[in-house]
C-alpha cells in the first residue's frame, strides 16, 4: 500500500520538533524573521513533503529517504570547538577564502563574521542576522518561495545557520570564496543549511560550493540558497557534489538578477545517493546574462534530478542552459528545464540543451525541456538527447590501437568536456577535469573526495593539490 506522504511520521516529527524547540529556534530572531518562521511552519504543515503526485516530483521518489529516522542538530555542538583539530586546510596553487559548515553550522576560528580586505563580509548566517539586520531582512526569504514549496517552508522554519556573504557595491573579491559543507556525525542527520549571498552593484564574486560527507550515515540535507545579484554585478558559482550513497541532498537555489548582471552557475555532481537540484533564475532587469550549466556522472543506484526554471521577466536578456549527463548501471537522471518568457520580455534569447548518454540498458533518463513563451519577438531553442556512445567514434578510436575501455573513457570525457570547459578558473577547471577523468575511470570513491581526504577519525584534510595535475 502506498503511504500518504502527507502523513509520514517525519512530518509530524518535524512539526512537534518545531513546537518543542521554538525557544531555541527563535532565540535570535528579529520580529520579521520570527513572523517568517511562523508562516513557514504553517505552510509546511499544509504542504508537507513532496510526493510523486506532484508534477515537479514525478520522477524523483523521496519515500525511502523520508521514512528514515533523523536527528536535527538545533544548536552548534560546542562553541569552543578547536577548529584545527577538525579541519586542516591544505591549498596549493589555488587560493581561496575557505569557509566551512559542519553539520549545518558555521565553523569559525575567531570570529563568526570575517571582513575581507575589500570590505566583503563573510560568515555565519545566524550572526549576520543579528549584526546586519537591515541588509539581512532586505533579502532573506524574499526570493525563496514558501507558499508552494513545502521543503522551502520547512527550511525556512528551521533555518538557523549557514553562510552569509555580502559583497559591497563596486567590490571585486580578489580570490574565490569557497564554502565546504561537511556532514560528520555518527547520527543520521537532517540538516537544513541556509545561505544568503548578496552582490552589490558592479561587484564581482567567484563562489565555489562543495557538498561533502565524512561519514556514511544516512543524511537528508535540505538546503536553500538565496542569491541577490545587483546591477552590473557578476557571479560565478560552482557547485560540486560528491557525497556518499546514503545521502539525500536537496538544494534549492534562487538567483535574483537586476539589470546588466551576469550569472554563471555550474553544478557538477559526481556522486550522491539522491540529488535534487532546483535552480530558479529571475531575470529582473534588462540585459542580464544567465548561464546555467550542469554535469552529472551517475552510476550504481544513484539518482539525480536537475530542475531549472528561468524567468525572463524583462526584455533583452540572454540565458543559456547546458546540462549533460552520463548514466551507468541502474542509475537514473531527471532533467526538467522550464523557460518562461513573459509578455513584455521582447528580444529574449534563451537556449536550453540537455544531453545524456546511457551506458547500460537499465540506466534511465527522464528529460523534459519546456518553453513557455508569451512575447512575440524572441529567439528560443531547446533540445534534449538520450543516446549511447557513438559506435563510429568507438571504432575510430580503437582502430588507433586504443583499447575499448580507454576508448569509452575518452568519449565520455569528450562528452563532459563541453561543460567542464565552461569553467573559467583555470585551476579549478583542471582540478575538476582530473576529477571527471578519475570518476570515469571508476577511481573516484567517496574516500578520495574532491577536496577532502580523511586521514583518521579526527582530522579532515582539505587537499586541493593542483601541483600534481
Amino acid at each position, binding site marked *: 500500500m502506498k503511504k500518504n506522504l502527507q502523513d509520514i511520521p517525519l512530518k509530524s516529527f518535524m512539526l512537534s520538533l518545531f513546537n518543542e524547540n521554538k525557544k531555541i529556534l527563535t532565540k535570535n530572531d528579529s520580529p520579521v524573521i520570527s513572523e517568517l518562521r511562523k508562516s513557514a511552519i504553517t505552510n509546511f504543515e499544509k504542504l508537507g513533503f513532496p510526493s510523486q503526485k506532484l508534477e515537479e516530483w514525478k520522477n524523483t521518489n523521496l519515500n525511502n529517504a523520508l521514512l528514515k529516522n533523523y536527528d536535527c542538530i538545533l544548536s552548534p555542538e560546542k562553541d569552543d570547538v578547536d577548529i584545527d583539530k577538525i579541519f586542516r586546510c591544505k591549498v596549493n596553487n589555488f587560493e581561496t577564502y575557505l569557509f566551512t559548515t559542519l553539520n549545518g553550522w558555521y565553523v569559525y576560528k575567531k570570529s563568526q563574521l570575517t571582513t575581507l580586505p575589500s570590505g566583503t563580509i563573510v560568515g555565519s548566517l545566524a550572526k549576520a542576522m543579528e549584526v546586519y539586520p537591515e541588509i539581512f531582512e532586505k533579502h532573506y526569504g524574499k526570493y525563496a518561495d514558501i507558499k508552494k514549496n513545502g521543503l522551502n517552508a520547512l527550511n525556512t522554519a528551521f533555518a538557523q545557520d549557514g553562510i552569509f556573504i555580502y559583497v559591497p557595491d563596486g567590490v571585486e573579491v580578489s580570490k574565490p570564496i569557497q564554502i565546504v559543507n561537511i556532514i560528520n556525525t555518527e547520527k543520521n542527520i537532517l540538516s537544513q543549511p541556509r545561505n544568503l549571498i548578496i552582490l552589490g552593484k558592479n561587484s564581482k564574486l567567484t563562489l565555489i560550493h562543495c557538498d561533502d560527507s565524512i561519514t556514511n550515515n544516512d543524511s537528508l540535507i535540505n538546503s536553500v540558497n538565496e542569491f541577490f545579484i545587483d546591477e552590473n554585478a557578476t557571479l560565478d558559482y560552482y557547485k560540486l557534489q560528491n557525497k556518499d550513497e546514503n545521502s539525500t541532498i536537496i538544494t534549492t537555489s534562487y538567483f535574483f538578477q537586476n539589470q546588466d548582471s551576469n550569472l554563471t552557475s555550474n553544478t557538477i555532481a559526481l556522486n550522491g545517493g539522491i540529488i535534487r537540484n532546483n535552480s530558479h533564475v529571475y531575470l529582473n532587469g534588462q540585459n542580464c546574462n544567465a548561464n546555467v550549466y550542469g554535469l552529472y556522472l551517475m552510476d550504481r543506484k544513484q539518482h539525480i534530478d536537475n530542475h531549472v526554471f528561468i524567468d525572463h521577466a524583462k526584455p533583452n536578456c540572454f540565458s543559456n542552459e547546458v546540462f549533460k549527463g552520463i548514466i551507468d548501471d541502474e542509475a537514473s537522471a531527471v532533467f526538467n528545464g522550464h523557460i518562461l518568457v513573459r509578455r513584455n520580455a521582447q528580444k529574449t534569447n534563451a537556449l536550453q540543451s540537455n544531453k545524456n548518454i546511457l551506458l547500460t540498458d537499465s540506466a534511465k533518463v527522464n528529460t523534459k525541456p519546456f518553453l513557455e513563451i508569451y512575447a512575440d519577438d524572441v529567439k528560443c531553442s531547446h533540445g534534449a538527447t538520450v543516446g549511447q556512445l*557513438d559506435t563510429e*567514434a568507438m571504432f575510430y578510436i580503437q*582502430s588507433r590501437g586504443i583499447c575499448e575501455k*580507454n576508448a569509452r573513457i575518452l568519449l565520455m570525457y569528450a562528452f563532459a568536456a563541453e561543460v567542464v570547459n565552461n569553467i573559467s578558473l583555470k585551476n579549478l577547471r583542471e582540478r575538476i577535469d582530473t576529477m571527471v577523468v578519475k570518476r570515469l575511470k571508476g577511481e573516484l570513491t567517496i574516500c578520495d573526495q574532491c577536496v577532502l581526504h580523511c586521514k583518521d577519525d579526527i582530522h579532515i584534510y582539505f587537499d586541493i593539490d593542483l601541483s600534481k595535475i
Partner: protein
Amino acid sequence: MLIIKNLKVSIKGKEIIKGLNLEVKPGEVHAIMGPNGTGKSTLANVIAGKDIYDITDGEIIYKGKNLFEMSVVDRAREGIFLGFQYPVEIPGVTITNFLRSAVDEQRKYKGLEALPASEFLEMMEKKKKLVDIKSDLTNRSVNEGFSGGEKKRNEIFQMAMLEPTLSILDETDSGLDIDALKIVANGVNKLKAKDNATVLITHYQRLLDYIIPDFVHVLYEGRIVKSGGKELAMELEEKGYNWIKKELEQ
C-alpha cells in the same frame, strides 16, 4: 604480408564482397579502384575490423595470422592502419592527447616503455613537417571543425605517428584540392619503406599521379575483375568504368 582468399562479406543479408582475392607484399603500393558502391570501403573496414559485417566465407591472413581472430585494437597494434574516408570528430580531446594515448598503448603492446613527454613532442614536430600540419592544429580537438583537407591531413599525420606496417587509405583524396592532395601524397610517399605496404582506395586516377602504385586493381560488384600495373589506371581514366563493364559482359 596480407593475403585475402575468396573473401565474401555481407551486411544485413546483402552480399557486398563476393569472393575477393588479393595479396599485398612488403614494400608494395596497391591501388584499388572502382565505381561507387562496389565494396571498396567495405573491404577497408573489414580489414580494420569494423564489426557490422558478416564474413560469410574466405579468410584474411595478416603476417601469417588469421586476421579474423584479432580485435580491432590488436589489428592496430599489429600495424594495420585505416585512413578514414570520413574521420570522426572527438570534441574535447586534443590530437596531442589522442595520439599520446594511441602511441603509448601501442608501445605497451610491443613491450616498450612509454615515450617521455619531451621525446613524444619531438616526434610530433618531426611528423608534422612531413604532412605540413600547422602546429596549432594538434592542440585542437580531434577533427572538430576541421576542413575536409585538414581532416585528411590529420589522418596521414596519425599514420606517420603510428608507423603502421599496412596502411589502408580509404578515399583519402576525396574532397581535396590539388594542393592538399599533393601534401597528402607527399606524406604517403615519404612514409613508404621496404617493410611496409600501402593500399590506396580511390575513385579517381588523380591521386595516382602523385603516388605511383605498383599494382592497380579494379573492384567491381564485389570482385577484383582486373589487375595490372600503373598503366591500368591511365587506361581507366581514359576509357571510364564502362569499358570494364562492357568487357565483363562479353
